């Protein structure tokens, strides 16, 4: 019993320490936001990589999420004749919850892992040291543009995700399950407020910050060659996903 408690305590302290180090890296990066040189090109490059290149996979997964959501809610709602509310349910679920979370998780898998692998490889092949030796701060050059790109692009991707999810719901609900189209849209307008959408986008921004920061952190402190890069990439994806889901709860509890 004692040893289990000891193990748990040890794990907990390790986690706190790691979160602390992540925060330090975050603050370092922030402090470079206002100091020259400003390499605008790097920001756009990362926005393209994290945002534009994730467009297809986010749109596709969101479409199917909306479709299955319509299918499931229709099944449940038809038991008490509330089929007309399927549209509003899908739209509320997407904007408040699933849009940001699906986008966050998909971008973690696609870009968060790549960020970690790239910076990790640069670390183990001394490219990060080479930047430092050339008097270029690697946090400013590598970490900051990625975090900024994540914070900006995730809300934009989430807007696409929300639209695609609602479109998927419409296709299944109206075309397949014969809900009246006007009714479907009308109920969405009636029940979904702009606050639902905005709060979802704020969450998405936070997720963008989390997944890029964790990817950069894990990459930046990679040790031990190719094996080390593999290990930190796995850790980055797991840690980002967990942090996104945990922070999702707290952000939701705080905002709604």
């Amino acid at each position: 019993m004692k040893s289990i408690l000891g193990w748990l305590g040890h794990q907990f302290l390790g986690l706190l320490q790691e979160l602390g180090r992540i925060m330090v890296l975050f603050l370092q990066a922030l402090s470079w936001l206002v100091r020259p040189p400003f390499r605008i090109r790097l920001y756009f490059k990362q926005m393209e990589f994290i945002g534009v290149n994730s467009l297809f996979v986010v749109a596709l997964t969101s479409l199917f999420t909306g479709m299955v959501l319509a299918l499931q809610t229709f099944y449940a709602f038809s038991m008490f004749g509330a089929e007309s509310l399927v549209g509003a349910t899908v739209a509320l679920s997407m904007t408040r919850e699933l849009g940001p979370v699906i986008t966050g998780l998909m971008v973690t898998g696609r870009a968060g892992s790549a960020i970690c692998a790239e910076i990790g490889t640069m670390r183990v092949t001394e490219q990060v040291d080479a930047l430092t030796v050339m008097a270029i701060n690697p946090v400013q050059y590598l970490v900051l543009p990625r975090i900024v790109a994540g914070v900006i692009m995730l809300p934009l991707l989430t807007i696409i995700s929300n639209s695609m999810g609602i479109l998927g719901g419409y296709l299944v609900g109206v075309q397949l399950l014969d809900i009246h189209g006007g009714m479907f849209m009308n109920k969405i307008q009636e029940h979904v407020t702009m606050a639902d959408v905005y709060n979802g986008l704020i969450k998405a921004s936070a997720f963008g910050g989390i997944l890029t920061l964790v990817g950069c952190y894990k990459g930046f402190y990679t040790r031990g060659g190719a094996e080390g890069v593999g290990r930190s990439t796995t850790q980055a994806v797991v840690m980002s996903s967990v942090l996104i889901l945990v922070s999702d709860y707290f952000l939701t509890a705080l905002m709604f």
Partner: protein
Amino acid sequence: MQQDRDIIHIERLYKSFGDFRVLDGLDLNLEKDRVNIIIGRSGGGKSVLIKHIIGLLKPDKGRILVHGEDIVPMNEGEMARVRRDFGMLFQEAALFDSLNVHENVAFPLHEHTSKSYSEIDEVVQTKLAAVGLQGMDKKMPAELSGGMRKRVGLARALALEPKIVLFDEPTSGLDPVMAAAINELIQRTRQEFGATCIVISHDIDATMKIADNIYMLYEGKIIARGSPAEIRENSDPVVRQFIRGEAKGPIKVN
């Protein structure tokens, strides 16, 4: 005066990783405008020493004077200023693998000068020609051999005309012909670009050929210093065993 000839002056440097003491009160003076070669066993702290000189690692204790300025208490901003005088060739060259050869060499110029694209291109072409790689501009680092990568790395290190160039095991992993070519480049770096060279190496034959000063690092201290001839005549059994490459002697193989 001796002080004026020393470009780097290290006093009582200590560094441990966990319980393992790598540098143990090391004293070292590196002379200006010379090829200074630090020899020692693999894993004996040579890389750690060179990383202290450029400020990638901070010592537990001790002073490192570059041009008479102590770099140990410096913050990142001050360090960045000092590093402008340095160029470094990394062991595996550390080229940015998302950039091609031209972009790699041009990188420090774009970052630290206000030169126009055509002026930068001119510098890049000169540096690439100096290392014998003209016309390779568009190649990616992954397409180059180990020796070519190191030569691009050297061209990049020389791009800003540094006063001091550090070489981390410049010939390890190269065939003898390429190693000889790199060694010649080290000498030319001093002669043509007027830079002080600091090389760490365990290649004794090459060291004897190109060094002006040799320093032997052993168990965290500099145990011998001198010209190649003086090192060859050194009577310390550790130095003798190392430069002759013998398995038996005071240095334990483990």
